[in-house]
C-alpha cells in the first residue's frame, strides 16, 4: 500500500466510526430525552398520555396519602396548578409535604401522573434547581427560600427512590 492509500484507509475508518457514533447519538436523542415541566406548564402544553416527562414542584401540604404495600399518592403543586401523582415504592429520606421534589413518569388516561422515580434533595432547606427557577418565573418565589438556599450552599446529596 502506498502512503496515500494508508492515509485514506485511516481517514475512511475514522469517519466511519464517527458517523456511527453520530448516528447513535441522534437516534438516542430522539428516543430517550425527558423534558422537565411544572404542573402549570403541563396543563398548558397538554402533554399526551404516556409521554414521559419530569414533573417538578412542591408537595402540596395535606395531599400525602399512604396506601397499602408502599403505594403513595400526593399532589405536586406550583402555586397556580396542582397535579395528582401516584407512586409505588420507598420515598426518598427527606420527602415531606411542602418540600420541592421532582418525579419522573407519565400521565395516565385519568390524568394522574404515574411516577416511577421520585427525587428529593438531601437537605431540608434545599429546593431542586428546576423547581426554584420555575417558581421564580411565576412569582411564587419567597425570599426566605433564597436565603435558605445560600446558607445551605454546600454539601447536598440527592437521594433517589426508584422502582424498576
Amino acid at each position, binding site marked *: 500500500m502506498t502512503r496515500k492509500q*494508508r492515509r485514506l484507509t485511516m481517514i475512511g475508518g475514522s469517519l466511519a466510526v464517527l458517523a456511527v457514533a453520530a448516528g447513535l447519538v441522534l437516534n438516542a436523542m430522539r428516543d430517550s430525552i425527558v423534558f422537565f415541566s411544572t404542573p402549570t406548564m403541563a396543563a398548558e402544553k397538554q402533554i399526551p398520555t404516556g409521554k414521559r416527562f419530569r414533573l417538578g414542584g412542591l408537595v402540596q401540604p395535606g395531599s400525602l396519602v399512604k396506601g397499602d404495600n408502599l403505594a403513595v399518592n400526593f399532589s405536586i403543586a406550583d402555586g397556580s396548578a396542582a397535579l395528582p401523582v401516584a407512586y409505588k415504592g420507598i420515598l426518598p429520606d427527606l420527602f415531606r409535604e411542602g418540600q420541592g421534589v421532582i418525579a419522573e413518569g407519565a400521565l395516565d388516561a385519568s390524568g394522574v401522573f404515574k411516577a416511577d422515580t421520585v427525587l428529593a434533595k438531601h437537605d431540608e432547606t434545599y429546593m431542586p434547581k428546576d423547581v426554584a427557577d420555575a417558581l421564580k418565573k411565576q412569582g411564587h418565589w419567597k425570599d426566605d427560600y433564597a436565603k435558605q438556599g445560600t446558607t445551605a450552599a454546600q454539601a447536598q446529596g440527592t437521594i433517589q427512590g426508584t422502582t424498576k
Partner: protein
Amino acid sequence: MIAEAGHYALVLALALALIQSTVPIAGARWGDHALMNVARSTALAQLLFVGASFTALTMLHVVSDFSVVNVFENSHSAKPLLYKITGVWGNHEGSMLLWVLILALFGGLVAAFGNNLPLSLRAHVLAVQGWIAGAFYLFILVTSNPFQRIASPPIEGRDLNPVLQDIGLAVHPPMLYLGYVGFSISFSFAVAALIEGRIDAAWARWVRPWTLMAWIFLTLGIAMGSYWAYYELGWGGWWFWDPVENASLMPWLAGTALLHSAVVMEKRNALKVWTILLSILTFSLSLLGTFLVRSGVLTSVHAFATDPARGVFILLILCLFIGGSLSLYAWRASTLKQGGLFAPISREGALVLNNLFLTSACATVFIGTLYPLALEVLTGDKISVGAPFFNLTFGPLFVPLLLAVPFGPLLAWKRGDLFGAAQRLTAAGVVGLVAIAVLFAWTHGGATLAPLAIGLAVFVIAGAITDLAERIGLFRVPFTSAIARARGLPRATWGTVFAHAGMGVALIGIVCETTWNSEYIGTMKPNDVATVAGYQLKLDEITQRQGPNFREMIAQFTVRDGETLQVMTPSKRNFTTRGSSTTEAALLTRGASQLYISLGDTNADGAIAVRIYHKPLVLLIWWGPVLMAFGGLLSLSDRRLRVGAPKPAKAARALQPAE
C-alpha cells in the same frame, strides 16, 4: 492565628507560582541555567507552602475552631475525629485546596525526580504547572477563601452533610483528584513540547509513567465513588450517568486513549501530533470536570457550590487554558515531524482503532452531559438526559472496541497478520461461544443480550490469557521453560494482560447485576419473612440507639439459606443538627454476590418499608477496575519506565537541552 497563617501561606504559594511560571521560561529563552533551575526550587517551595496551608485548615477542623466560616458550616464538635479530617475536603473551599495541594505535589515530584529530563524541558513543564497553579490559587483566594473568619463566632457548627460522613469520602475525592490533577503533568509536557517545537520517542517515555500514574488513581477513584454510591445512597445503584460521574469518566476515557497512543509514540515514533492533542484534551476534560462540579451549574449528588461568581471564574480559567493550549497546538503542531509508517492492519493500527472508539465514546458522553446545559442556555427548555441515552450510545461503541481488544496485542508492529491473530484466538473464541451457549441453555431464553455480552467478556479475558500463553510458549515448550519465560516477560506485558482481563471481569459483573438482579420491596413487621433469590430474611426486631452526632434506628434481620447464615443490621440515622437522615444499607457478601437491605419509612402501625436486593456477581464490577489498576501498577514498575532507570544513550542524544 492558624487561619491567618494558612491564608498567608496560600498567598506566598501564589507568589511562588507566579515566579515559577515566568522566570524559567525566560531562562530557557536566554539559555540561562540558573534561571531555568529556579523552576525546581519554586516548585518544591510551593509544595511546602500549600502543604502548610492545607495542614492549617485541617488543624482548624480538628480543633473545631468555629470562628472560621468553613469550619462552622461543615463541622460539629461531636463529629468523630476521622470525619473532622475528611470534612476538610467535604466542602467546596477545602476540596479546592486539596486540588491545588495535589497539583503542587505533582509539580514537586517532577522537580524532585525529573533530574534526567533535559533542563529546558523541565523548566517549561514546571512553568506550565506554575500557570495552572497560579490560576487556581487566585480562584481560591478571590472567590473561595477557606480561612474566612466570622465576626461573632458561634458556639456550635452546622455539621457536615451526613451522606458525606462516611469512610468512602475519606478515600474517593483524594483518589479522584490524584487522577484528575495527575493529567496536568502530561498536559504540561505537551505544552512544553509545543513551545520547544520538538518531540520524540524519549518524550513519550517521560510522559507515560505520569499518565499511567494518573490513570491508576482515576480508575480506582471512579471505582471507589461507584461503590460508595452503591452502599451509601441506599438503593443499590452503582452508576447513575450523573453529570458529575460523567465528568470523571470523560478524562478516564481520554486518558485511556492517551496511554495507548503514547505506546505507539514511544515504540514507533508515530502518532506524535495526535498524542499531543490527546494530552491536551485529557487535562481539558479534567478542567471541565472541575468546572461542572465546582461551579454549581449542575445540582446533583456531588454539587457542593451554588455561587455564580465561582462558576464564571472557573469558566474563565477553563477557556484560558483549553483555548490557549489548543491555539498553541494549531499554531505549532505542524512543526512536529511525523514519523513511523505503518499498515492499517498492525499493532499501531489496532491502537489507532482503540483511540478512535475511546474518543468517540468520550464524545458521546460529552454530548449527553453538556447538551442539556447548552439547550437550557439557548432555548430555556429543560431536559434530562439519563441512562437510556448513554446505554444506546456508549454501549454499541464499546462492543466493537472489546471485540478488537484481544487482537491488538497479537498483531505485529508495522504490518500485522490478522488471519494469524484470528487463528491464535480460536481457542478464546470457542471459550466465548461455549459461555454463550451454556448461558442460553441455563437461562432458557430469558434475556438475549446478556449471554452475548458475557460471551464477549469471556472472549476478552480468554484473549488476554491467550496473549500471555503465546508469549511464554505455553504447551509449545516444556512447562519449566514456559515458567522461566513468564518470569522474563516485561512487566508492562503482564500489565496489559491484567488490565484487559479486568475490563472483561467488570463487564461480567455489570451484565449479571443488571440482568439477574432480584429485589423485594415492601413493608415488614417484626417476625415477617421475605424471600429473595432463595434466601429467607426474617425481621427480628427494630431497636433505637444513640450515636455520637445522630440517632439511629436499627433493624435486625436473620438470613437463612437452609441453615442460619448471618445477621444483617441495616439502619437509618437521623442527624439532629441538620435535621436530615441517611440510610445505612446492610451488605452480606457470598462469593462475588451480595444481599443488600436498606430501610425506608416506618408506618404508623410499626411496619417498616424495606428494600432487599440480591445482586449476583456484583462485586466483579469493582474487582475489574482493581485488576485494571493493578495491571497499570505492574506496567508502571516496568524497568523501562521507572523514573531514573538507566536509559540508552540514544535517548539522551535525541533531546539535547536548548542552548
